[in-house]
Every structure is written in structure tokens, then in C-alpha cells.
């Protein structure tokens, strides 16, 4: 039973792009790139009503609607659909899995055509600009030269920022939620511990686990558990679990005794079925090195051809706090880029950008309604 306001049953499509190879920022050429993507809504005749959705660290192309037989919708279903804030009655929405991912787009677990084996750690280190180049490749394939907006939260917002900085001609508006232009030492520290959990797992096998029939399952699940703590606020954990016992009453042991421990265990386990440990290393590392404003000329291209920006942060987000967003706002403002900014009241932490918070969605709706008026 498909609920009202859903885009309905959808399918992930795959396309092979970059027949001449993709030269990544590192200089290493990927001979071919597969991209998994989904689309919702209808592209208008002028091809002017497209919106690109960039997903966060562990997202995928399945942003909205239901895959046949599934009872859970895509990861951003609450905001994408007919009548929703990103209204598919108006917009043609594109979402793709990012390069280096493991949900249908080429990544370290893909087969290297040169060897016939998975790339493993031979896969090049990636850069935010590589994600953007692949998005642009998909845009060319779809025959879209300009998106009315690119939208993303967290790592997705970082891609949107990079895209607007490098190719402002591609975008009308940039919507950046709960993102950062530069990770703090604390952010990098969390990221590092997650990676160490993976790399110190005996199943990691110096990154060659795919060909050696092992997997750093313990490490990857611990990395996910750790990261998950940073996605929620203290309040959110307290509200969901408090100190309640997993089985009636606390037993006093080293096992899973508190409900919150069971929750983390479940999150860690569930992650194993859908994520690749090497993708986790590659994608988190892109975030660590991301620092576009370190280049004094970073804004020159955007200044010459401004994209309108809407930035949103959330009060209880301690992973990318409001200060991260304000830093982006300061840089854009100083460069005289048309910029709007809101800090939304939310008790749920970093994951707030994925939630159906009325004030947040009303903000996105108001901003995109104006954009719709302009393309009409």
C-alpha cells in the first residue's frame, strides 16, 4: 500500500558514463564509471525544472518512493513527492549514488577492468570535485544543461557547495543543509577512529579482503555505531532510550544490557548488509580533506556567475554545528553571493536534515516555490 504523497514504485537505473575514462582529481584515470540513479516527476519541454539531490555519506540513489516489494521508502521520501516540499508535480528530481560508493555506482569494490579483480585500495583517493564531475556526466546523459537547484544535506551539501563554486553555470539555486566547508579536528578525530576500527580488523587484510574472502565486519559495524552517536543529540538518545533496560530490567553484565546498546548493535549490523568498508574509508576521507575556501580564489568563478544559496543548520547538531554553516554564509556573503540562512530549532541533532520538521520543510518549500515561479 503506497501512502498518499509518495512518488510510488520506483526503480534504480544504471548507466555507463565517461567512455573515454574519467580523470580524477588525483590524476588517476578510471577507464569507466557506472552510475546508479533514480528520477521522479517529469522533465518539462524546456528541460528547466530539474533538481539534483546529492546524498550524504551512507545514502544512495533511492531517495524517494518504494522499490517493488519494499515496505520502507527511500531515505528522503518525506521531502520528495507530489505536494511535498520538493514537489514532484513541479520538479523533475534526479538522485544518484556518488562515485566511490557501493550502491550501484563505481567504487573500490567494483571490478577494475585492467585486472578483472576489485579495485580495493588501488582505487584512487577521491575529491569532492570528482563527485561533482560524475553528477555532471549524468546530467549530460539526461540532456540537462542547467538544474533549477541542487540540494543536499551533510556530505550532500558539501557536494552542492563544490558544484556551485566550480560550475555555477549548471545551477540556479544551491540548497545546503547541515553541512560544512571544513571539518574540525573533532570531526576528523571521529572519522579517524571509524577508519581505524575497519583497518585494524583482522578481516581487513590490507584492503585486499574482497579477493581473500574475508571482510572487516566487526570494524565496519563499530565505525557505524560510533558515527551514529554523532548523528543524534544527547537529548535524542535520552528521549529514545534513557537508561531503560533491553530486557525488562538491568542484569549487570558486559553484554547488551541497556536499550541504547541494542540500538547501536542493530544499526551496526544493519549497515553491514548495505555498505562496503572500503567505500566507507574513501568517502569519509573526502570529507576530511574538503576545504574549498582554503584557496583564496575559490569564489572567483561563482562571483562571476552567482548561484542563489539557501543554507540551513539545526540548533542541536553537534556534528556540523551552526557555526559550520555560518562559516559558509560568511564566505558567500563577503563575495556578495545572494545568500539566505536559517537556523532551525530541532532537538534531534545532525540527522534533523533527514526529518520531517515543519519549519524546515516550509523553508525549503518557500524557497523552491519562488524558483518554480521563475521557470514557469
Amino acid at each position, binding site marked *: 500500500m503506497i501512502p498518499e504523497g509518495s512518488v510510488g514504485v520506483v526503480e534504480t537505473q544504471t548507466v555507463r558514463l565517461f567512455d573515454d575514462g574519467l580523470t580524477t582529481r588525483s590524476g588517476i584515470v578510471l577507464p569507466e564509471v557506472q552510475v546508479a540513479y533514480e528520477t521522479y516527476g517529469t522533465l518539462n519541454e524546456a528541460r528547466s525544472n530539474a533538481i539534483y539531490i546529492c546524498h550524504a555519506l551512507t545514502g544512495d540513489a533511492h531517495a524517494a518512493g518504494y522499490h517493488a516489494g519494499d515496505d520502507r521508502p527511500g531515505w528522503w521520501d518525506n521531502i520528495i513527492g507530489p505536494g511535498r516540499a520538493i514537489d514532484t508535480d513541479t520538479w523533475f528530481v534526479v538522485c544518484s549514488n556518488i562515485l566511490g560508493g557501493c550502491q550501484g555506482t563505481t567504487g573500490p569494490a567494483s571490478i577494475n577492468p585492467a585486472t578483472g579483480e576489485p579495485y580495493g585500495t588501488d582505487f584512487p583517493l577521491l575529491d569532492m570535485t570528482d563527485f561533482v564531475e560524475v553528477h555532471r556526466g549524468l546530467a549530460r546523459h539526461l540532456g540537462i544543461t542547467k538544474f533549477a537547484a541542487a540540494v543536499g544535506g551533510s556530505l550532500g551539501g558539501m557536494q552542492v557547495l563544490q558544484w556551485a563554486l566550480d560550475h555555477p553555470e549548471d545551477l540556479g539555486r544551491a540548497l545546503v543543509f547541515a553541512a560544512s566547508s571544513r571539518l574540525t579536528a573533532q570531526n576528523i578525530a571521529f572519522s579517524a577512529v571509524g577508519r581505524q576500527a575497519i583497518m585494524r580488523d583482522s578481516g581487513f587484510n590490507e584492503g585486499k579482503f574482497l579477493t581473500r574472502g574475508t571482510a572487516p565486519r566487526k570494524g565496519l559495524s563499530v565505525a557505524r555505531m560510533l558515527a551514529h552517536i554523532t548523528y543524534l543529540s544527547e537529548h535524542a538518545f535520552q528521549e529514545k532510550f534513557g537508561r531503560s533496560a533491553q530486557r525488562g530490567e538491568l542484569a549487570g553484565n558486559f553484554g547488551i544490557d541497556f536499550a541504547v546498546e541494542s540500538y547501536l548493535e542493530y544499526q551496526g549490523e544493519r549497515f553491514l548488509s548495505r555498505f562496503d568498508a572500503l567505500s566507507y574509508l574513501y568517502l569519509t576521507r573526502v570529507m576530511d580533506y574538503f576545504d574549498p575556501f582554503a584557496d583564496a580564489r575559490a569564489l572567483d568563478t561563482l562571483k562571476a556567475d552567482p548561484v542563489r544559496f*539557501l543554507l540551513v543548520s539545526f540548533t542541536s547538531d553537534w556534528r556540523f554545528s551552526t557555526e559550520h554553516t555560518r562559516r559558509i554564509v*560568511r564566505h558567500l*556573503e563577503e563575495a556578495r553571493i*545572494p*545568500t*539566505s*540562512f536559517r537556523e532551525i530549532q530541532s532537538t534531534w541533532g545532525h540527522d534533523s536534515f533527514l526529518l520531517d520538521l515543519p519549519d524546515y520543510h*516550509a523553508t525549503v518549500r*518557500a524557497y523552491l516555490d519562488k524558483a518554480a515561479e521563475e521557470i514557469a
Partner: protein
Amino acid sequence: MTVERFRPDLALIASLIPAGSRVLDLGCGNGDLMALLQGKGCTGTGVDVDPERVLACLRRGVDVIELDLDTQLGEFADDSYDFVVLSRTLQTVHKPRAVLTEMGRIALHSVVSMPNFAHWRNRFRLLRGRMPMSKDLPYRWYDTPNLHHTSLPDLEPLFAMLGMVVERRIPLDADGHPHRLGNFAANLAASSSLYLLHTER
């Protein structure tokens, strides 16, 4: 979009700002002034904290940044705007002197308007032993956003102290139109007053 739909003093402010200027409107409300200014080729940003008003701005294509005037104007870089407008808002901030100082840093030119507590009607109400209430001071004492009251002779020395030079003073009547007496007996006649200022660099 016609000028008549807006508060008359907003049209007056818009007329003081040259076409093509970059304008920061502090306490921008629904974005009426910025919309007027966009109509004459200005760019810029509004600042407000009320969610409904911020949404109204976004919906009409007026860029708006949510922040607190008393503590967060430091977010804007030196000389990043040509004009800063503070229309009927100075009396509501905690530290008017600090806000004016920030305005002078952010832009060379400022437009400031403020109700005149020494308007003759207010004086009469005080003489009758009552607190002033008027179109420009419409609130009961216990339910007002206004934290500060001033007369024009008490306001202008503050500008001078902060190196803000009064280029024009336009006394307004209770409807926000320029007062027909002009600057004659302004401290008695003006319900509020509008100042065009520039900051000495």
C-alpha cells in the same frame, strides 16, 4: 508592484538609496523594503528572526539571514554593503550604540528611523499623567518590543559620538509621510524621524 502597497516611510527610504546599491535591511519584516529596492535594481539581504516573516521573504525572493542584531552583526564583513537600513528597530535592540557601530562598519551609508518620544502628543499624555501612546508608539508599557525611548536632540549626539554624520534628517508625521513642517520644530512636530547618515572613515 506599486509603491502604495507599502508603508509610506519605506517608499521614502527606497527613494534615498541609489539604484544598484547593495543594501542590508536590519529587521526586514516581510521584505517589503527589499522588494521595493529590488524593483530599482538594488541587491542585498534582509535580517529578521521571526519565522513567519523569514518565510515570507524567501517566498517572494528576498534573501534573508536569520540572526540576532544585538550579538551577531559581526557575521557581516567590513564594507560588505553600500547601505544598512534600520527602520523603526533601533528602539527594540538591547544596545543601540553597539548596533549603530556595527552598521557603520558594515556599510558607509546608513538609514535609521526611530519614533520621537518628545512628539507634542506624547508630551500632552505625560502632562496628563499617562504614558505616551501613538501610531508610532502603539504598545502598552508592559507589552512592547520597545526598550529605549528618545527625543531627537537626545538621539543625534549619539550619531555624532559614533562618527556618523547626518546628511539628511526627515521628520515624519504619524502616517510615515515627510512632515509638512519639514525641519521646523521637528522635536515637537515629528512623530518619528528618518536619518540618512554616513560614517566617517
